[in-house]
């Protein structure tokens, strides 16, 4: 059940999108998100949708796999759309029943919101599907490296992030095992009201925390044994280097942003 969550996981494939420098993908995602929030304009949304579809096709991540990542938040998505549809007031009433009234404005609002949220999630999921956690933290580290001059521990935070990402699958698997081990002792996690269930969950925390702490201690020792010192200058096996395709991608991002701004302010 817990293992079904695919959002944020890397999908290995060889594609132009996979090969891009993570910094390009980070900026690209940022620009894409901004473009979705800049204005509710059919043309902007149309362009964004086309761009997203092209990118997904280029990335060779199966579309069904992308949609599977949407599943966990489907409820939230439908709920917000429905709230907007039923409870936003407007001028042109289409349909009315008791306290629910639907106006043309509410329909367009719900549609916009639905499309915006879906694209927002798909767009950022595309980045995590095509970028390994290590690349991602490397990219973030590089992008924020000017801040290290202000004595902010950018490198340490980046390393912490990548280690956290590495241990998420290990700990979810462990949680799964602990749940089964306790179910075998007649703990029924699906029984009782919400408070009772949360209480039962608490028995999972002791073994999970004690194991996580033990792992953290072990890892710290192993890192020390391999000569890690916090604050020291480290080098990289694969330092980030821009290629021509990255520059081309930056240009495309710039073009996209310009088009969006043109539509908003001039068109």
């Amino acid at each position, binding site marked *: 059940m817990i293992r079904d969550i695919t959002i944020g996981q890397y999908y290995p494939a060889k594609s132009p999108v996979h090969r891009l420098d993570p910094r390009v993908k980070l900026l690209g995602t940022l620009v894409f998100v901004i473009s979705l929030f800049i204005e509710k304009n059919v043309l902007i949304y149309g362009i964004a949708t086309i761009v997203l579809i092209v990118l997904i096709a280029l990335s060779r991540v199966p579309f069904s796999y992308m949609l599977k990542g949407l599943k966990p938040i489907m409820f939230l998505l439908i709920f917000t759309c429905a709230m907007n549809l039923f409870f936003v007031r407007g001028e042109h009433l289409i349909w009315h029943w008791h306290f629910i009234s639907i106006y043309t404005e509410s329909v367009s609002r719900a549609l916009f919101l639905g499309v915006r949220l879906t694209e927002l999630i798909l767009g950022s999921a595309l980045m995590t599907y095509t970028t390994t956690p290590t690349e991602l933290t490397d990219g973030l580290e590089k992008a924020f490296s000017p801040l290290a001059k202000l004595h902010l521990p950018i490198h340490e935070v980046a390393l912490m992030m*990548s280690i956290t990402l590495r241990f998420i699958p290990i700990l979810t698997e462990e949680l799964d095992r602990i749940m089964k081990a306790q179910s075998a*002792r007649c703990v029924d996690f699906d029984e009782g009201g919400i408070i009772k269930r949360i209480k039962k969950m608490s028995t999972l925390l002791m073994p999970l925390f004690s194991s996580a702490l033990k792992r953290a201690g*072990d890892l710290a020792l192993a890192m020390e*044994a391999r000569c890690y010192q916090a604050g020291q200058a480290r080098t990289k*096996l694969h330092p980030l280097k821009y290629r021509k395709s990255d520059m081309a991608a930056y240009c495309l991002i710039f073009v996209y942003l310009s088009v969006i701004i043109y539509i908003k302010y001039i068109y």
Partner: protein
Amino acid sequence: MIQIKQLIFKYIRRDIDGNEAGSETVLDGINLQINEGEFVAILGRNGSGKSTFAKQLNAILRPSDGRVLVDGLDSNDDDNKYKIRRKAGMVFQNPDNQMVASVVCEDVAFGPENLGFKPDEIKDKVDNALRAVHMWNQSDVATGRLSGGQKQRVAIAGVLAMEPDYIILDEPTAMLDPEGRKEVIETVIRLNKEKNMTVVLITHNIEEAINADRVIVIENGRVCADDKPDKIFMDKELIDKNGITVPFEYRVWREISGGRKATVKNIEQLADKIADIAGDRVEHAGCRTELARHRVQTVAEPYSDNKCTGTHNISVDDEPLLVLKDVSYVYNPNTAYEKTAVKDISAAFKRGEFVGIAGHTGSGKSTLIQLFNGLLSPTNGCVMYEGKDINSKETSKKYVRSKIGMVFQYPEHQMVKDTVYGDVIFGPGNLNLDKAECEKRAKASLSMVGIPEEMWDKSPLQLSGGQKRRVAIAGVLAMKPDFIILDEPAAGLDAEGKREIFDWLRKTCVDDNIGIILVSHSMEDIAEYTDRMIVLNDGGLIYDDIPATVFSHSEELRKMGLDVPCAVRLMNELSLRGFPGCPDIVKEKDAIDKIRMWTGLGGNEND
């Protein structure tokens, strides 16, 4: 050269305010010298101080008193800390907990990255290190996809990438399956022989020490023996005192040789030696032909009328209580990740039976046992308990799970309360029994597993590995089960702890008429303790028979990545050397008795 001079190490206990509240001496005056190119194995029971000693060798811990010198660098000097760590690399027990990165090559690069090498240099070092552990072609694989043995080899590569002169391994195989163990130990031996790397291997698995140049036994923080493996393994007193099991070859040799010295590093050598002494004897008595006449291979009797197990009879219920009918289980059906873990398995289990389930990692063992008590429901087929389908709506899952108890590999996972007693009473408390009955059951099961009353208020996490395991078993026993299923109950225990658990299980099986289903990688354990064994391969059931019959298919088992027990291998080797074939012998004791009969030599009788 590593020199250890009068090394003393104390753990200091502090109270809440940080004041010293006492100390515990873990290492107590160790003097040693480890020379270049040596392969040193360090043995000792759990808690003897051997892991603490290992951490002293690369300045992770530093002496409270005395000195550790690595190539003349004193570990007490702060400036030497990282120089020493670079010279003496360390590999730890848990493969998952020592990986920093998600991709193999990036993890191996961590050390050189810390040392500030340039990208090209790092790449060379990573490539060389991965080649040395034969993992070069997996350089871009995600670490999560590797097997335990492969992960541990990557961890070794991670150390090699720093180009150390010494490599210290702290129980590197304790969490691996037999295949992984073999991979890791072969890698270590290769590094020692081909690259002339100095190896310090801390282990409690004695088979791994057999190839060492030198074995050091640590007891209560002191070196109590330091000698060639042959000498150590023949010293019965020393071995018994330290809770070590000697390798099978030496164990048998000691029993039958009547005190003769010999190097028996593998079963073939042992068989040769036995043939030699038996030859002398037999020649002398003029009955060589007699032996030759026995060379006819006899075939093991089928299960229905077995006489060979020599254990108790399963008499109580003729009807099997737990029945699997054509059970299959598919993970993630109808997706890209679809995987059939268990295929059309039918089997039946009775109370009072001791059944072993064997199969290599990924053969479907863990999935199968989760089907037994409804932790997973089969995709096809059904599981019946007392004649009812356990996955139907009418059957109470709670009742089934209380009757079919399960003890998992990591007892910590099963602990739900913060005291031993509270934890054991938790199970019966879930069964709507009255309070007095719950208490009675909890107390009875704790004393059954031999946990003394003064420990009942302790936290389960404070107990030793063996004690934790026993508390987990008590928690299951308190529910009065008909069956107990155990997944690798001996993992991580030393020889003594292991023997205790198994002897106790055997006794419970017979005395209390409880069915024991044991999942294990160890064919030795299955041969020694079970009445019947099931072999799984690729999710299918291959054999379901008495151990002697199953082990007669040694070639087929080997193809599935499984071994046969040493006793069987020895008897096979002996039959190649002209002794009569004995397919009914699977236990060590029976093998020794048989050989004694042939050679006419006793244990302590001197020739």
